[in-house]
């Protein structure tokens, strides 16, 4: 079975937010909310600061705390690609998952359920890339099967330095940032 993940090249990314806009239109994310966002990580002092720009979203963790804490089973691991999803009909909007996520990836949709990135599973199941990946003008985003050693994502991880967000949280995130 595939294990979907993303590899994002921070060297190419300019933080233009096209990924955020594309997610919004593709998934009709309501005004005032976004399922993904850009982080500008600035360290050091002027005139020699360092900045890493990252497109961030749900990490679709291998050990997702949002799933283990969900009282109704609404938060679950999908059988295709191991994507973490929310069944809106089962969700009671208790916000336990929102609090449990170390990445701040979830919010409560105005219709009352927990919402977040789905890796655009509706597109992926049609053989398309997630909307954010497909629009990125810098082509800094890659999506694929982490368990397939020949996939683009696996090859990139094998050949480039990379890191994940908050590795100490024990969540085993599946979004990797190339540096």
């Amino acid at each position, binding site marked *: 079975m595939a294990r979907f993940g993303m590899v994002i090249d921070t060297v190419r990314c*300019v933080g233009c937010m096209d990924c955020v806009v594309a997610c919004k239109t593709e998934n009709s994310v309501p005004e005032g*909310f976004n399922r993904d966002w850009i982080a500008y990580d600035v360290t050091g002092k*002027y005139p020699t600061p360092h900045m890493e720009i990252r497109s961030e979203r749900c990490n679709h963790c291998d050990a997702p705390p949002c799933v283990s804490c969900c009282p109704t089973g609404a938060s679950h691991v999908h059988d295709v690609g191991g994507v973490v999803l929310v069944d809106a009909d089962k969700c009671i909007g208790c916000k336990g998952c929102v609090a449990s996520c170390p990445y701040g990836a979830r919010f409560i949709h105005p219709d009352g359920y927990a919402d977040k990135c789905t890796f655009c599973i509706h597109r992926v199941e049609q053989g398309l890339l997630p909307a954010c990946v*497909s629009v990125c003008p810098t082509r800094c985003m890659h999506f694929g099967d982490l368990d397939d050693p020949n996939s683009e994502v696996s090859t990139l991880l094998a050949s480039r330095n990379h890191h994940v967000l908050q590795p100490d949280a024990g969540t085993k995130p599946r979004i990797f940032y190339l540096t």
Partner: protein
Amino acid sequence: MSDFSRRKFLKISAATVTVASGAAALAKGQPAPAKMASRPAKGVQRIPTYCDICFWKCGAIASVRDGTLWKIEGNPDDPLSRGRLCPRGTGGIGAHFDPDRLKRPLIRKRERGHEEWAEVSWDEAFAYIARKMHAIRETYGPESVAMFAHGIGGNFLKHTLKAFGTPNFAAPSFAQCRGPRDVGFRLTFGEDVGSPERTDIKNAQCLVLIGSHLGENMHNSQVQEFADAVGNGATVIVADPRFSVAASKAKHYLPIKPGTDLALLLAWMHVLVEEGLYDKEYIAAHGFGFDQFAARIATCTPEWAYPETGIDPETIRTTAREMARHKPATLVHPGRHTAWYGNDAQRSRAIALLNALLGSWGHRGGFYAPSSMDVPGYPYPPYPKPAKGKVDNPDNRYPFAHEAISTGIREATITGAPYPVKAWFTYATNLIQALPNQAETIKAIQNLDLLVVVDVVPSEMAGWADVVLPEAVYLERFDDLNVELFREPFVALRQPVVDAPDDQKPNWWMAKKLAETLGLGHYYPWKDIEEYLDHRLTAARLSFADLKARGIIRGAPQPTVVEEGASLSFETPSGKIEFYSLQLEKAGFDPVPVYHRPDEPPPGSFRLLTGRSPVHTFSRTQTNRILSDMMDENEVWLNADMARRMDLKSGDYVCLKNQDGVVSNRVRVKATERIRPDCVYMVHGFGHTARGLRHAYLKGASDSQLVTRYATDPLMGGTGMNVNFVTIEPEATHG
């Protein structure tokens, strides 16, 4: 920006119980879904068109789902977008759904400056305009009508006004933006870099950016190629008072003192000449006046430039050598918004000369030779010959201005010299935010007998109009063909994807109706724009039906660089690259650029610098609910140490007060390690004061309001706008 959107994201998630449900649609309060009567309502239709959120005009494919506009993506056949739009283009559907849009034609009810109008029919609006125009023609002549336009959509209205008999057409994109660059390059190479720029960024091995903030300035093809160059390991050198996104990708970041770029450029050229690192063969074949040029820059050593620029001599030498190492694939980017300090054409000429030393003009990784499709214009009847010359540049005061100077028309409107200007038409340009010194713009407007504003939203400019004509947004209209010079020839079609939700009309329809009302109907021999487009395409042996289906038709690629067989020629007086310019000398200007030290900010003041955000275009997209969700107000960037000293932190609201006492709307501080301590920076386009822009009203600060001073470029009339100084005031002092 991202920090902000993330903060908002979290804040709102915590407060969802108070948010009304039923907001599944993209924008609260959006109009009923617009439907194309002629298209089936069920399923997804994909309709190709080209974008209009900026002037880049990327090819796009819009998706309509069950009759409602859903999303818009890049057209894979389009050489500009290469199948990927920028965030503004992707968010373009928000323009259609914008609840703040103009809906019907308006005629002013009260004196100008009060946003009070009566809704009228289109016929009433045209009759009113025609009556005023006839009276102006009677008293002053048809030349007393002027038009300001931005973008391809102005073509038809321009045609109507040419038929009326005026020669006065200007775009702020010249004197307020790219004009100095174009003049500097023309004086040197005999040609300018055009738009889209002929920069071969993707093949550059060394890319030098001087204040150009690619990635924030989101010109799609250029940003895509920038990422390619960075991904390929190109050496990036950035000189900017601000640690831009591009600077974060740079091997060498030069934190230059604002206004001293020309000193750096001269010193770089000095090193290349002194150390014999320039392309000698190229210059022997194509250069004119090199020895005189070399003599003139002999004193411009890195040691001379150091106290001016703050860049140490060793860094200047290292970076110059790095440029030489990669020549001719070293691209010193010409920039785009170059109206900074009033010496901008000469600074741009220095950029051109630096490129010439490196041999990059005409070579791979430098500047390529673009080509376009041969699509003849429509065979209209000849226009009447205006009795008077253009009003914007009397006595050729700015001898190297090859386009009309918008601020020159404004000046003539104020002074009445060389002759009075009594009517302005503006198309898709918000002159209150685009021109420096708003008081002068308003003074000029008050001298008019007629101000007609064509726009999609009730901008500040619309607020001053006598007649407001609401245009259908690009997703709702046909437009003229896009036949642009680029890497390869192509023609692109803009066609309607959905209906306009109210009584908005396309520009071509307005222009034709106005011509008919003016008795100039014979200038529009075509019935509608489809007939016009079909005629032009047939003349080019292309199929309109084919273009409707595909959106883009590409022509045969031509050689673009010497390496592909392109040849070099220079349309300068000498027929060569003019290192020493006799035409400048003859006109009384420096034949080789000379550095002049800029004024220092007074103690306690900061130089005001401005730039772009990737999610907004000028002052025209702030009510687009998708794009405003990315960024709904601007911030004032302040060096973190200065902020600490002033007891300010990120998120605090302050006001900016300029040297003439003008106080801005409140704006949030961004305390950051990404800017020098002697300047502050804002993204242009915010701080709207037009009440009709409900969503953007008084959000952030307007840099335009603070630009009361400008330095005029003596070569071409450009208005350098980085010459204003501000102090940071507590929010409370602002009334």
